[in-house]
């Protein structure tokens, strides 16, 4: 199986490569359009700022490429946010794969920390990424912005209010949390993604 990790100007894209390696899979990190288009699975990971990463994608015409992919695609963290319609971070229009907007967490009281950093639980799980025994279990998050819940939400987490922990439409999947840093549970979710048939 050929797994491609899209190379762009976001940070920490290598941690997902390490996680795949722990699953016995050697992924290729590249921005080569043909390689991305012919891959069996495409992963769109990273941490970073929405408007600058979106500008980079446009400049390298990776935006059109991503929305037209037909194989299973998995966005992670900023990857999920860029796959939404719009982000408040830098007030930027994103790829529009998911019909929802990305907003900043606004603490209503003292003591609520931004970013949300650490382990939180996932609920209302749907799609082949998850199995019923994963309900209420912990995954690792680092983020200051979140995607609002919508019809394409396939998992929710609560931080001040519920939001999209994961999204799905057609061949596109996305996770706000970091499966590559979420211990055995995260590896199971990655493995479930790799097992999705085209």
């Amino acid at each position, binding site marked *: 199986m050929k797994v491609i990790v899209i190379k762009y100007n976001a*940070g*920490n894209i*290598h*941690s997902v490569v*390490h*996680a795949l*390696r*722990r699953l016995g899979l050697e992924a290729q990190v590249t921005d080569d359009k043909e390689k991305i288009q012919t891959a069996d699975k495409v992963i769109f990971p990273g*941490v*970073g*700022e929405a408007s600058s990463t979106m500008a980079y994608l446009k400049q390298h015409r990776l935006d059109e490429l991503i929305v037209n992919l037909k194989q299973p695609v998995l966005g992670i963290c900023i990857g999920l946010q860029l796959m939404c319609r719009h982000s408040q971070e830098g007030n930027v229009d994103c790829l529009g794969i998911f019909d929802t907007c990305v907003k900043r967490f606004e*603490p209503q009281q*003292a*003591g609520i*920390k*931004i*970013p*949300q*950093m*650490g*382990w*939180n*639980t996932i609920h209302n799980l749907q799609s082949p990424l998850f199995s019923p025994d994963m309900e209420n279990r*912990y995954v*690792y*998050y*680092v*983020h200051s912005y979140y995607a609002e819940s919508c019809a394409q939400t396939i998992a929710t987490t*609560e*931080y001040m209010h519920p939001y999209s922990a994961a999204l799905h439409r057609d061949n596109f999947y996305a996770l706000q949390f*970091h499966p*590559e*840093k*979420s*211990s*055995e549970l*995260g*590896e199971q979710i990655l493995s479930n993604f790799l097992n999705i048939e085209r």
Partner: protein
Amino acid sequence: MLAKRIIPCLDVKDGQTVKGVHFVNFRQAGDPVELGEAYSKQGADELVYLDITASFEGRKTFTDLVRKVAARISIPFTVGGGIHELADIDRLLNAGADKVSINTAALLKPQLIDEIARNFGSQMCVVAIDAKLEEDGKWRCYINGGRKPLDRELLEWALEAQDRGAGEILFTSMSHDGVKTGYPNEALAMLADKLSIPVIASGGAGNMEHFRDAFVLGKADAALAASVFHFGEIKIPDLKAYLKKEGVIVREQ
């Protein structure tokens, strides 16, 4: 609900884990990769690796270690020690670290925090502060592994670090570190109330009640400890079961 984090800290010298008592007199405590993996399996929420060797050779060994940890461990880990400039951070993040912790370099050159936040993002940047409660009742910041006092006060420096783009504050009380009498809960609560970024309590854990107090009284987001874990005095599953019983939200595997 977001869980409170338990973070074992591994001090590494020449590729081996050591633990200092009051920052001197080191004792050996095992292979850092295996130890980290064991903690991860027991339910540690994150790991911190601190490079306490200063030499060029030692730093190279540490980078190799970071690479090995990244290849084996599936929870987040922070690395610190001997970081002076962006090139050091780039090297460690490329080797697979999730976050870097800076201490002396940040106090001597605060704009380093801005640079890290701008180049890699705030979430990568942990600012570690070693401070000591002085006789005048003020918390004074120290650099160079606790050897040199500076004319900076804990809260004032923590707020500046936050404004410059720190993602977390890791506060070690030198008055409490290594003596196992508990974390400095009043100072922690003061930091937690004034800061909008997470606070990691470090230094002083001797028993499970100390962890509870750091979370309940100190309002810390995470608690870091070393020797109580390394020498098996506290087992992480027991600690989490205890904290849960005490009403603290912790991650169960």
